[in-house]
């Protein structure tokens, strides 16, 4: 019997990578891409492959490393989230011109919603900007197959290729049938050719011309790629309405039309949005009076359809310009178009009555919070206690949730806690104002893009407190190791990098390491740091708040459990709930005071230090 397994979409992509003989896979974790590399590791172990894998320190680093492997003739891939491709954009734009020798696949995972990202940006536009082909899968199985297609196209045309699975592909689960995995023994053989690999602007012009020719050829290929680009038009027939869809919205649209048995609406699926399969699109445009475009998250296909007068979509106001195209949204927008065109509407209703009912129930919004026992919580608590009037610049990771404790004022992009802190400093210093500033950044984010901003801040004389929230792991994205841990992507030992030494190397003279579980000591050190910052020789004061993530290693994080209870001294002042914001602390209606939810309490005992009335005590014995 054929071997089947349920794969996460990211696992299916990993399977596609090993099936296609990828020899090098690099990545920086970021939702929704984070599981691809760990799945590759799982497969190379189970299949006995020698694929080189690495967690790179950031996405640009990941792409450069994969690029070098690819131009030495190997098959390489790098994986990241869509905003990670912004970080790697410098590399991508240039790599498109230089081209590759071995296959180079860049997997950039989009996040319509957004569920876990700063933007809803559409990677297809990034591909168009860089002038590289992009493939847009509708489900895990198709993503797996497109990995092979992408590497083949890349190798054949000597061009990097982007695969852009959206979150509903990455985090979908589907049963996948195994195929035999062949080992790829291609050896590294970089052929020197400085006119190309180190091309100066004069040669870049020539390379640009070559790139344009490649795209033209690939465009023709895509027109005939009926496995991924296809329509169900009947020859000679005309239709009042046709639909063009790609990626996840194609799958959603297909299911809705199948359920409703609507064979009267032809659908063109675009699996390769760039270079655009022009000929195929023209066939649909000619056969239909109106064409509705359903795509995520921007207007990529919509811009490329030539006869705008026929096109309905975001630009005509029929499709929302932001947010995810979930089935009920697609259902409603198709129905709206059908009604406007006097065509038979869909039968199923969108359950509007239930949505109205739920709205009226006024359910509490369940905002994400730092976990019970999280070391970031006491770090934030201490920062606020020591520097209540500061501007709090922060960054991207679990600790963005410091928002809930009132200790995160800004979150721009990776590394911006530091760069914005120096920016704020100079903006205020120019007016002669000594504005306290505390920047918080996680360890992994610091490794990703903290150093350039830090040495800039030190060099240019900025003064602020930098707290590196070092939980010794990349927590938010699923517990990937950081360079400080000395464990590599495949579990092997690497050289551990010291945060303290990097910070010192950036020119910081005040460096303290503290365990944030000790609130008094942490608060004291922040006050000491504030004195240094304001002092005559002040500058950036760095505090490394080091304590293991409670999810990554509960035993390590809480070696000694402290069971706590709340006594009748509690005056129901809510200080702990507002300022400490532990989900295990709640207002008990019956008792008329704060209580502890034993189901989720981690027994970290940190809250023993916070109650102004001393009403949180340790249970004896």
């Amino acid at each position, binding site marked *: 019997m054929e071997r*089947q*397994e*349920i794969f*996460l979409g990211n696992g299916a992509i990993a399977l596609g990578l090993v099936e296609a003989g990828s020899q090098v896979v690099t990545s920086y974790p970021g*939702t*929704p891409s*984070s*599981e691809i590399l760990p799945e590759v590791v799982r497969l190379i172990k189970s299949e006995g492959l020698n694929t080189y894998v690495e967690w790179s320190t950031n996405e640009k680093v990941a792409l450069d490393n994969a690029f070098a492997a690819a131009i030495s003739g190997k098959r390489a891939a790098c994986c990241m989230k869509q905003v990670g491709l912004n970080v790697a954009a410098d590399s991508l734009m240039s790599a498109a011109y230089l081209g590759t020798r071995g296959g180079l696949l860049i997997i950039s995972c989009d996040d319509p919603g957004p*569920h*876990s990202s700063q933007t809803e940006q559409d990677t297809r536009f990034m591909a168009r900007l860089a002038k590289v082909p992009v493939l847009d899968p*509708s*489900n895990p199985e198709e993503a797996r197959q497109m990995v092979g297609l992408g590497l083949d196209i890349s190798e054949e045309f000597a061009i990097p290729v982007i695969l852009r699975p959206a979150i*509903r592909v990455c*985090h*979908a*689960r*589907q*049963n996948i049938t195994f195929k035999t995995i062949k080992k790829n023994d291609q050896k590294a053989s970089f052929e020197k050719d400085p006119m190309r690999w180190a091309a100066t602007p004069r040669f870049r012009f020539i390379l640009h011309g070559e790139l344009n020719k490649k795209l033209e050829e690939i465009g023709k290929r895509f027109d005939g790629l009926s496995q991924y680009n296809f329509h169900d038009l009947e020859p000679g027939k005309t239709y009042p309405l046709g639909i063009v869809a790609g990626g*996840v919205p*194609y*799958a*959603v649209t*297909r*299911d*809705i039309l*199948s359920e409703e048995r609507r064979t009267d609406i032809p659908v063109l699926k675009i699996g390769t949005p760039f270079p655009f399969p022009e000929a195929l699109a023209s066939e649909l445009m000619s056969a239909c009076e109106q064409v509705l475009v359903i795509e995520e998250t921007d207007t990529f296909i919509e811009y490329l359809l030539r006869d705008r007068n026929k096109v309905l979509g975001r630009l005509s106001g029929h499709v929302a310009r932001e947010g995810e195209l*979930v*089935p*009920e949204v697609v*259902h409603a927008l198709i129905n709206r178009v059908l009604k406007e065109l006097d065509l038979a509407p869909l039968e*199923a*209703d*969108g*359950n509007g*009555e*239930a*949505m109205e*009912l*739920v709205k*009226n*129930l006024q*359910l*509490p919004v*369940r*905002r*994400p*919070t*730092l*976990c019970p026992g999280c070391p970031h919580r006491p770090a934030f608590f201490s920062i606020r206690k020591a520097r209540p009037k500061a501007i709090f610049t922060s960054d991207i990771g*679990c600790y*963005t*949730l410091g928002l809930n404790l009132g200790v995160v004022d800004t979150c721009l992009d990776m590394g911006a806690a530091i760069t914005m802190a120096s920016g704020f400093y100079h903006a205020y210093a120019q007016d002669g104002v000594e504005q306290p500033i505390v920047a918080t950044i996680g360890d992994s984010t610091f490794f990703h893009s903290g150093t350039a901003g830090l040495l800039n801040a030190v060099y240019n004389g900025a003064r602020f407190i930098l707290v590196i929230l070092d939980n010794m792991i990349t927590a*938010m*994205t*699923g517990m990937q190791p950081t360079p400080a841990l000395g464990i590599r992507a495949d579990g092997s030992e690497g050289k551990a990098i010291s945060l303290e030494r990097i910070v010192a190397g950036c020119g910081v003279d005040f460096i303290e390491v503290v365990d944030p579980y000790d609130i008094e000591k942490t608060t004291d050190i922040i006050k000491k740091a504030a004195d240094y910052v304001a002092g005559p020789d002040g500058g950036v004061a760095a505090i490394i708040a080091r304590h293991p993530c409670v999810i990554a290693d509960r035993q390590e994080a809480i070696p000694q459990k402290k069971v706590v209870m709340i006594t009748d001294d509690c005056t129901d002042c809510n200080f702990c709930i507002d300022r400490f914001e532990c*989900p295990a602390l709640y207002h008990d209606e019956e008792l008329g005071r704060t209580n502890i939810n*034993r*189901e*989720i309490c981690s027994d970290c005992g940190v809250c023993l230090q916070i109650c102004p009335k001393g009403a949180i005590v340790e249970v004896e014995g």
Partner: protein
Amino acid sequence: METTNIVLCGLGGQGILFMTKIFAQVALGKGLNIMGAETHGMAQRGGSVVSHLRIGQVESSLVRTGAAHFLLALDETEAYRNLPFLSKGAGMYVSTHAGDFPRQETIGFLEKNKIVCHAIPAATIAMELGAPLSTNLALLGYFSAFGEGPMSKEELRGTIANISPDQLRESNLKVFDTGLKRGLEEKGE
């Protein structure tokens, strides 16, 4: 075969993904096609978490509102939040301690749409058995008593036995069985 649409919901950290995995594994064992959608990332830090699972020949992983055949909720509030997914005649299985479940305001809607509500204090059961992190399995056991969907209680139980780590197997099954017993009692079996 007709498609079966399942929605599972609760809060981050309650074990929604594990519950989804059990359903998916049972379906796979029966040679059925599955397609599911999960929540990862920031929402896992205690926020609302929803998992969709579709069994049958489908293209997309998301269940449309009004199309779920049953809903399993590890949190009462999340159960209400996900009401729009339920189809007419659907079943709803909720972990709650509230004596007044379901809320008065929802009864008219539920009756009109013939949605059957089942409630169990799954968290208390799991806590009493010394396995507070297995609330999900108490609910799953309870659900399995009612014979909904293309999977039997024996298949669900067998899959839990198969995929549980050795040190948790016995405890997981005990919690599942306790939930199952509650369900069977409620059915009068």
